[in-house]
């Protein structure tokens, strides 16, 4: 046996072990396939687990506990101050990540999935070569590409010593002041984490609004709540240059309405989106095609243009979200095994872990407007909800978007505490083809925030008991 020329044969090779790749590997193994999983990193879990969702939500939760403790003064609970042990917080986040990554390792092992560390590149429609691994290549019948996405590069003229979101999640230190470039969900979530840890945080966004994908009424409630926590929010503003100063800190030149301005920050966090990892994986040796935005072209069975090759998750079209990748993973695995499945989901929920959280699913009001789709909307403010009062969190609302004719639920938008959890009911309602009456006639436990979903449906139905009817003239 000569090292470096050892080849392996398998039925299916999965490239990448994020929430797309590892789920595909497990499902394939459960369905009786012989599976090899190739991961470039030394740990399983991909961006989501190693430098995305999981560490960021751990930090967000930590800050939320601190904020809640401080807010408890309003209930008469004195909190004389909070201290932050950054080392312990970093260690704790690492424990969470390691625990979950180890869990994936054991799931893969129990299923008999062969795992190989290395970089996989296709050399044909049935072979990949592995760089940096003990195995030099794999001959497969089918492949699932789950290579995910990576951070967008900084434009020219920007220094590279700024932080990316991955850098920030490692908690190197808490800078005294920080500019977050990018008012999307990653920038806002991490900006609020560092604010909670003690930084003076400003945000600059190229577009005239924060969270451009979300409906304005939801974003407005969140902005109002976090306004006091953010130093300066610059919208409709371009970043002209970021220059590192001698002796630390950055000088940032911004431009708004043709006027330039200069600000100084101890650190700059750049969160300007992600790009699909479709290059440098040898796709040119297969029949798979890359679309306009760099994503691998797939159909609703997650098939690429190459009959042997499937692609799922961030490297394909659609929102770059872990739960979308996991759903596609199961579809690809089942299609490979001959099941009659396809991606026909009606709604992919989106969640933003700001404080309060924002979540939406199905159609947004904005999309309905842009698409000329007639809708009816029922809004219910959390201020009218008992449970929200008990929590002292009345900053929020739930809205139900439905078809005005037959009241089929088309979309749900939520801003408020635990919006991330509450949105699940809305997604289920849309997938099941539920109507307003279905939500209204379902008993929701009291007192909970989930009652707001039922109440919003009642408002849309014009039958809300907890909202005053419009005054008669």
């Amino acid at each position: 046996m000569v090292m470096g020329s050892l080849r392996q044969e398998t039925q299916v090779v999965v490239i990448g072990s994020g929430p797309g790749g590892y789920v595909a590997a497990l499902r394939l193994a459960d369905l009786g396939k012989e599976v090899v999983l190739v991961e470039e990193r030394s740990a399983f879990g991909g961006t989501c687990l190693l430098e995305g969702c999981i560490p960021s939500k751990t930090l967000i939760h930590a800050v939320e506990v601190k904020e809640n403790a401080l807010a408890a003064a309003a209930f008469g609970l004195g909190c004389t101050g909070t201290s932050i042990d950054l080392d312990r917080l970093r260690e704790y986040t690492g424990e969470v990540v390691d625990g979950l990554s180890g869990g994936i390792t054991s799931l893969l092992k129990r299923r008999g999935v062969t795992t190989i560390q290395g970089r996989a590149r296709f050399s044909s429609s049935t072979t990949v070569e592995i760089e940096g691994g003990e195995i030099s290549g794999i001959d497969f019948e089918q492949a699932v590409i789950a290579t995910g996405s990576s951070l967008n590069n900084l434009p020219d003229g920007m220094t590279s010593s700024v932080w990316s979101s991955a850098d920030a999640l490692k908690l190197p230190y808490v800078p005294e002041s920080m500019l977050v470039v990018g008012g999307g969900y990653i920038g806002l979530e991490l900006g609020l984490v560092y604010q909670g840890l003690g930084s003076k945080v400003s945000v600059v966004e190229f577009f005239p609004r924060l969270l451009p994908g979300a409906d304005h009424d939801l974003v407005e409630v969140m902005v109002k709540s976090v306004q006091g926590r953010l130093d300066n929010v610059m919208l409709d503003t371009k970043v002209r240059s970021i220059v590192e100063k001698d002796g630390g800190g950055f000088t940032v030149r911004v431009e708004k309405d043709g006027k330039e301005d200069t600000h100084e920050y101890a650190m700059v966090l750049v969160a300007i989106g992600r790009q699909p990892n479709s290059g440098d994986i040898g796709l040119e040796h297969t029949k798979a095609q890359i679309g306009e935005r760099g994503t691998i072209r797939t159909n609703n069975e997650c098939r690429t243009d190459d009959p042997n090759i499937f692609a799922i998750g961030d490297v394909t079209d659609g929102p770059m979200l872990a739960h979308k990748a996991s759903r596609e993973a199961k579809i690809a695995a089942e299609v490979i095994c001959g099941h009659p499945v396809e991606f026909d989901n009606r709604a992919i929920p989106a969640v933003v872990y700001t404080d309060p959280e924002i979540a939406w699913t199905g159609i947004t009001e904005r999309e309905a407007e842009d698409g000329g789709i007639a809708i009816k909307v029922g809004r219910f403010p959390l201020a009218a909800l008992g449970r929200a009062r008990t929590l002292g969190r009345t900053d929020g609302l739930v809205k139900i978007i439905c078809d005005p004719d037959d009241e089929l639920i088309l979309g749900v938008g939520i801003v408020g505490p635990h919006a991330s959890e509450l949105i699940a009911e809305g997604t289920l309602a849309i997938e099941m083809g539920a109507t307003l009456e279905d939500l209204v006639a379902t008993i929701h436990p009291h007192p909970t925030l989930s009652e707001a979903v039922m109440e919003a449906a009642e408002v849309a139905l014009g039958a809300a008991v907890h909202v005053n009817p419009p005054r008669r003239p």
Partner: protein
Amino acid sequence: MFEFKLPDLGEGIAEGEILKWHVEVGQTVAEDAPLVDVETDKAAVTIPSPRGGAVTALSGKVGDVVNVGDVVAVIDDGSAAATVEPVAAPEPPAAVAPPAAAPAAKADGRRRPVPAAPATRRLAREMGVDINTIAGSGPAGRVTADDVRGTAAAEPFAPTAESDTAVHVPASSVADDQAFAEFAAHAASTIPFLELEPLPDFAVDGPVEVEKLRSIRRKVARKMVTSMTLVPHVAHMDDADVTALEEFRKSQKSARSGDPGIGSLTLLSFVIKAITAGLRAAPAFNASLDPFKEEIVYKKYYNIGFAADTGRGLVVPVIKGTDRKSIRDISTEIAEKAGLAREGALPAEDMRGGTFTITNVGPLGGTAMLPTINYPEVAILGMGRVQEKPVVRDGEIVIRKILPLTLAFDHRIADGADAARFVGELIRQLSDPNLLLLET
């Protein structure tokens, strides 16, 4: 634009199953170039394109059944619709692809996906039903699992796989499981002790090739299961001594080889004539039992079918009015119809109306068989291979030409004694050509 309607494929053929498209939408087809292969209950035919031009629409996928007169393709031959059919009002375009607006299409023209639970959507895919074509019975037009099953039941032979033959389909796909479970439950509720289980995945033990059950094969399958299920079969076997008959036949054949009827003279022609005489004497074997009306219908005409192996499957050409035809006429007709059947060109009219069937596997070999009655007939005669055998005649062993015969008959109408008499009479007539002359 030229709307090409499925042409009349022969007498009595109302529909055909699409076997293969030779063109795709967007392709250009030349006049008289192959357009589509269609298989009817009797034959597969390639239909050429009557016009040349770009194919703008094809209706129906492989496995779909289309009716004669349905628009199967729209060809842009450069003409406007009006110039093609200048007088007649345009045909309703309902049968043309694209499909009629789905029920979910809104008045304002926009379409939204049909509301249906994910499990229902999966069920539709498993049953090969396009859920977007179903008008849901639930609130807001929600499609229920029952809606899907109802739609699937309305088109029971809709193929679930788009692909044609020789594709390996995983044997234990959930779709098959579901359809099977429903079928098995239904069947078991009507037949006590009947237990149906899905077939194992044969591919586990070695390579397999899977082929769809198509028209003729499917038709044979239906007929045979119906016959074996409904009719209590009994078989009666005996041997006929055809030494004299064969001598006579061969001498006539060689003497008159120029005559098409005599030149192709086979034993079958004599048997048909002898059977006709037998049926007149024993009308029960030329009858049908109507189990729903509880009546026996005795037919006063004699149409004898003979099973023909065509390479595409079993076809039974029928010789009509055999009581009014000479052996020579019958012989001529057998040769003619067998030839047409092999070419797949036998008119449907020549395959219907039989009152009794003969299956002659003799030329291929065989001494005994248990033929299946061609339902709703009452009996079928199987002819084995004529062989020289030592037999005892008048206390001496002599070599005679022996034809083994098996009569399978419907025990609801006839009994063993009837069959013994019927076959005995047949044997008697086949033993002496003079008797055929005298008695038939």
